């Protein structure tokens, strides 16, 4: 993209970061290319698959649809921040533990997005142990997976709802 660039300042995973980019650069590219946070994946690039899911000010968003200019000053959390955030020390988040233990990932392209969606559900539920299978389905319905058939992902998220590392 040619033309003038702007300076974007934002908080990513608790750190102040900045990037000099065209205002319409996709946030996904700012994260992956400028900030080298390649944990967030691009599946479709058109808002259908959820592989690029991140949090903007706590909301679950497809980062491929967000122009950089729109996140000036925003607080962003990516998959890299799920395990390293102060809240959890250096340990994995309960959702990550559960994906590892119950076969929630195969090729891994959908995994960062799936984990973000699951973390969003769990952290926004007062008592995660009450989360039902249907709530999990609805929460993950925006995240496509070609490999797992979702079954192991549901099982992993169900387990994560009961793990201590998942409490908000």
């Amino acid at each position, binding site marked *: 993209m040619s033309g003038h660039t702007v300076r974007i300042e934002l908080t990513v995973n608790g750190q102040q970061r900045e990037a000099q980019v065209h205002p319409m650069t996709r946030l996904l590219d700012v994260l992956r290319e400028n900030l080298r946070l390649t944990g967030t994946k691009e*599946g*479709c690039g*058109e808002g*259908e*698959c959820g592989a690029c899911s991140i949090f903007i000010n706590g909301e679950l968003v497809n980062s491929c649809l967000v122009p950089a200019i729109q996140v000036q000053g925003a607080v962003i959390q990516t998959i890299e921040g799920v395990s390293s955030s102060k809240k959890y020390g250096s340990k994995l988040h309960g959702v990550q533990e559960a994906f590892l233990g*119950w*076969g929630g*990932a*195969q*090729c*891994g392209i959908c995994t960062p997005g799936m984990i973000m969606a699951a973390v969003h559900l769990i952290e926004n539920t007062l008592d995660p142990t009450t989360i039902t*299978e249907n709530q*999990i*389905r*609805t929460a*993950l*319905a*925006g*995240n*496509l*997976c*070609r*490999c*797992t*058939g*979702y*079954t*192991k*992902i*549901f099982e992993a998220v169900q387990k994560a709802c009961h793990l201590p590392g998942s409490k908000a």
Partner: protein
Amino acid sequence: MTQALERSDYHRKQKRFAHENVTSPIKKGIGLASFMHGSGFTGSGEKILASVVGVEATSGGLVRILAASTEIGQGTNTIFSQIAADTLHLDYDSIEVAQPDTSQVPNSGPTVASRTCMIVGKLVESACISLKQTLISAGLLKENYSPTEFRKACSDYHQKFGPLKLFSKYQQPPQIGWDDVKYQGDAYGAYAWAVYIAEVSVDTRTCEVQVKDFVALQEVGKVIHPILAAGQIEGGVAQGIGYALYENVVWKDGRMANGQMTNYIMPTAADVPLIRVFFEEVPYAYGPAGAKGIGELPMDGPAPAILSAVENALGITGLNQIPLLPENLMLRHRSSR
């Protein structure tokens, strides 16, 4: 078959649905498919390919598997390590899998055809047996050894003879024969067998089909890793559900006209039921620890099972096209009334 019918409660459900369907606009149905899928390349494919796998042991006793199979999340590296660890009586952690770069590893053929576990895995197993035998016949290892003794033997071998690397090449099991001229004989060394049962609901107002329950029972020989094996089946069944109901490739001027996730519809978390996977284990003599192929099998069964469930729900026969999109079913359903 008996087990699949029991697990899915087939007969009772069929009766119950027939009764309930009379008064409900949403019709339920249950259907089954029994099928098989050959493991490895067809005909003489494996014989011609003559795949090779290597294993090497470092002087520190670390074992590296040299194979060309690509790990794409299906679990190749995990099961190869399991097979090697098991054959060599070592810890899983003392096995490493080399990157499948053919400047470093022998040609063990492509990662296709439900062959990685049965064909390449078997070569991993036999190369590990040769490794063990080499150390034993060099007088450096006894038949029953501990991991420490194995490490010591590797180190001694390196000092005495240099690098320790063994290869194993595919040999067709003697009872399999394929005639390339007449195109007759055993198309595959072994088959995986399955019975899949799908339960569906069909909304007769919109002709939308939903899969409510899915039982996938299969015999794939010995199951090497239960979680990964179930993951292969669940993923394949979900793809099969897409194949049966949603995934419609539209061709225009030699190109796919709907090559976007927006207009090529695949199943989401909201469309796939909990897939219930069961294995019957009948070890196969020419597979590693008795395993056969698994990858492609689960793609074959869902579409026929789902279509026959839809036929059962609507009391019709002869559905023979997929994907069974609502509009197609609507035309068909209307004309049959």
